[in-house]
């Protein structure tokens, strides 16, 4: 249950998988993503509501063939240049995209966690997204006749999230902005949680989420595993990292040097 990060990634993430590394600003599982880069996983479909610098890095490293998302950017800084290079120029490998709205992605994860094949939401009527994304359909309410959007449930092959604590049995506790982490884990076929630390006993608090050990495939202890994003109660966001990423990611060579460093074990 409690394994090393390297073991967990090797075991759980397979070439060609759909993989959701979730985290809404808070608790982005950077260490796990970097381990995926290091282990040269390929042809992944990367799923995330808010792909940011981490997915830019993974795309630049050639891990991904597709990205499913609802908001992609370096928050407060700008574009994701590696993502653009892959999507627009096919470098280092071509990248396909599938775009939704947040409400839709959240509903898709919830449907996936709920064992339903699709999600229903009021949305998209009149907008352009359904013209570019054939997975967005419309259905009629069988009672009122209203037209509603329907999208397929998300059930990633693997979900990876970072959390503050686990106990020795592998039960996990998340607090602060809890985001979509619970749904990502419960919607996935396999799941890994990296945690800041192991504790003797979890102490659930207001607005916390407990993921029982039996809902998870593996837990790995990775202190500071969410950096440069933040872990509520542990460390703040490293905003300078996000700013520096802009220059690195604009240039294939600068990115190459960053990548070498990560692969060497950064």
């Amino acid at each position, binding site marked *: 249950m409690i394994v090393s990060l390297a073991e967990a990634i090797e075991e759980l993430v397979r070439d060609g998988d759909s993989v959701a590394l979730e985290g*809404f600003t808070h608790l982005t599982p950077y260490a796990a993503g970097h381990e995926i880069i290091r282990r040269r996983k390929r042809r992944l479909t990367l799923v995330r509501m808010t792909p940011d610098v981490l997915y830019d890095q993974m795309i630049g490293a050639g891990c991904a063939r597709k990205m499913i998302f609802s908001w992609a950017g370096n*928050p407060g800084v700008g574009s994701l240049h590696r993502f653009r290079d892959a999507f627009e120029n096919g470098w280092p490998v071509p990248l396909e995209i599938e775009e939704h*709205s947040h409400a839709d992605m*959240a*509903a898709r994860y919830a449907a996936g966690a709920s064992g339903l094949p699709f999600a229903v939401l009021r949305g998209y009527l009149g907008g352009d997204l359904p013209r570019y994304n054939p997975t967005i359909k419309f259905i009629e309410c069988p009672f009122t006749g209203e037209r509603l959007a329907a999208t397929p449930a998300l059930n990633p092959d693997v979900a990876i999230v970072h959390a503050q604590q686990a106990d020795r049995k592998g039960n996990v506790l998340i607090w602060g902005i809890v985001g*979509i982490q619970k749904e990502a884990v419960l919607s996935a076929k396999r799941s890994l949680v990296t945690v800041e630390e192991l504790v003797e006993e979890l102490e659930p608090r207001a607005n916390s989420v407990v993921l029982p050990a039996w809902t998870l495939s593996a837990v790995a202890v990775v202190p500071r595993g969410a950096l440069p994003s933040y872990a509520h109660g542990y460390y703040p966001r490293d905003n300078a*990292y996000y700013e520096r990423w802009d220059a690195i990611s604009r240039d294939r060579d600068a990115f190459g040097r960053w990548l070498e460093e990560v692969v060497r074990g950064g």
Partner: protein
Amino acid sequence: MNASYAPGEMMTIAASRLLKNGDVCFVGIGRPNAAANLARLTHAPEIVLVYESGAIGAKPATLPISIGDDVIAERAQTIVSIPEIFTYWLQGGRIGIGFLGAAQIDRFANINTTVIGSYARPQSRLPGAGGAPEIATHAREVFVIMDQSLRSFVKKLDFLTTVGHLDGGDSRARTGARGAGPSVVITQLGVLRPDPASKELVLTQIHPTASVEDARAATGWELRVADDCRTTEPPTPDELAALRALNASRAATPRSSRL
């Protein structure tokens, strides 16, 4: 003290004035966030700020950089999951004002945050929809705050991400959207509001730092100007001081980090 001020400051302050004490406001990142928090720290201490990260009744001690920051979580009344914030709270019709930024807007206040140029071959790839389409659909009214220029106020959107008043008239209502749509657009030049019947944006306020001609020149269609278009009250010293203190509170993170 009658300090000078930047057009961007006027814009944020003009927007914050439109928020009332007790409003329930779904806050987008960037200028909406600054304006909503300015309102909370000045004339609207009981405003309820809701963030798509799941925070309800947030009272950030400093200006958050992102909508999922710890300062948003720390003093929130409650935090719910992201599926819940979009279902029970937004789609459930509990939000009074959806407060959005935008990259492009058209005369009917439709918004593009997806792409400039073509979808497959973007000239500029923007972040995408995020929460905006559903915020604009479900909030009882929508405020938009953005820079006004020929690049942003366009005749035709490159991509219709978020429906405002669609083709004008009652075309929005006919989609089944429950909220009333954009009621105001605040820019660095002035304030625009939709004509009650046609829903075309009309300039109803011009800021003291700009002229109606400036606004016309920064609009990619023939801009309608209200007969009673008035000049915005300049920022008060209190407003300016509060806004500057808020901006200065933004996390500086001097910490070095390896990349």
